[in-house]
């Protein structure tokens, strides 16, 4: 579960005040709102990458507001993916597991499992520079999911993809939702994505308020 209680966030001259919402455990929520309203700022605050002035951020009922990003067990896929360019696909996937000091065999087993789920088994030895948009997206998703996070945060994951790859990725996100118990928060501009994958739709208004709607088509 992700819960924001009256959170104030300052990002330079931009300010978001009194942001509150709840995403129940295991649900897939979509956060929508026009560009510049602070969607990425909210994601960064949840991840611990941006300081919160007031309010509380709770994950599974635990106040994590002052926790370091790594202690929150969140898988984060930023808009530009930010794959580690000096590492191979396998090393990108193994990064979080190595930091968490999983054994080599356990790490290798988890990578194989993820590669199967995401359809990237053939890419494991490749460097990330030569990957296509869809392949990079899958690797970024795998890197975020590798260490069994409680929360998965996706910042406009489908925006730079062509129509076919986008359809494949939506299918993949549905599979991830079914096969993992992870709670997902996905930012998008596209109302179609909300109806296709989300249980919950959160709309960020111009006034900085968040309105929640349950998606009945799911």
């Amino acid at each position, binding site marked *: 579960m992700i819960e924001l209680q009256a959170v104030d966030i300052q990002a330079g001259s931009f300010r978001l005040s009194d942001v509150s919402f709840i995403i129940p455990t295991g649900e897939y929520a979509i956060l929508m709102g026009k560009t510049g309203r602070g969607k990425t700022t909210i994601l*960064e605050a949840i*991840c*611990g*990458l941006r300081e919160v002035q007031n309010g509380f951020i709770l994950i599974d009922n635990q106040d994590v507001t002052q926790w*370091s*990003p*790594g202690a*929150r067990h*969140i*898988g*984060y896929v*930023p808009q*530009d993916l*930010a*794959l*580690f*360019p*000096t590492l191979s696909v396998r090393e990108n996937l193994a*990064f*979080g597991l190595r*930091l*968490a000091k999983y054994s080599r065999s356990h790490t290798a087993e988890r990578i194989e499992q993820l590669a199967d789920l995401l359809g990237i088994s053939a890419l494991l030895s490749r*460097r990330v520079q030569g990957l296509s948009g869809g392949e990079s997206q899958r690797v970024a998703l795998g*890197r975020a999911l590798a*260490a069994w996070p409680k929360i998965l945060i996706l910042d406009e994951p489908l925006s730079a993809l062509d129509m076919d790859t986008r359809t494949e990725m939506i299918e993949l996100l549905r599979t991830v939702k079914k096969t993992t118990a992870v709670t997902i928060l996905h930012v998008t501009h596209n109302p179609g994505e909300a109806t296709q994958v989300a249980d919950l739709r959160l709309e960020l208004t111009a006034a900085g308020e968040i309105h929640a709607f349950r998606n009945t088509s799911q």
Partner: protein
Amino acid sequence: MGGLSSLFVLLMVALLVADVSFSSWQSFAEALAKPEIQAACRLTMISCTLAAILSVWVATPMGYLLSRYRFPGRVAIDTLVDIPIVLPPLVLGLSLLILFHQPFWGWRLEDFLKDKLHFPVTFHWPAVVLAQFSVSCAFAIRTMRVTFDQINPRCEHVARTLGCTRGQAFMLIALPQAWRGVITAGTIAWARALGEFGPILVFAGSTRMKTEVLSTSVFLELSVGKLEAAVAVSLLMVAMAVIVLIVLRLLGTGLSP
């Protein structure tokens, strides 16, 4: 525009050709055979390399800090590190000399280093390294800052969500991407150290076989009227600079991802 740019290249070639035609192989060999010049050559290589290593060591975290973080005093630090770039080199040497010899409530840095640590600096070889480092480090910091400015900080953000501390994100993610910049900063620092003259003369002096480096050799040879020897040493510096720069560039190409 190409013609205008090639004028600069032509000027450099013309300068080298003039030096080579002025000098002779015999005077070059004679200059190289002098024990003083050999000692200066050794000290130049060692001091430039030490100054470059120290510069990169200091410049890498400093460049990262200035590129990534906003903190009180950042603008002041950013300006301070540029001072050696804009300051006349002679003034920097003079400032170093004053720093080491100015009494502060009866305590002097040079006396402390000499008497307590048995490590005299002024007019000894460490002064050469410190004078070179003071200038080269400023250039290395500029280079490293630009390098980190061009690296996407979001990779480090993702690394932190995966469990890295800020330090680990720097060491495991940012630094491997900055290798080309590290090599460039090292090259620039080494080249600046080789060309340094003013601060070394003031702070380390130009004692033969002790604090003489090639740039001061040129001055010493000129001051006793040995123009041919001065030109021969200059050509030796050109040769050393070209070799070191080529080696560093090759190293940089090999290490880049």
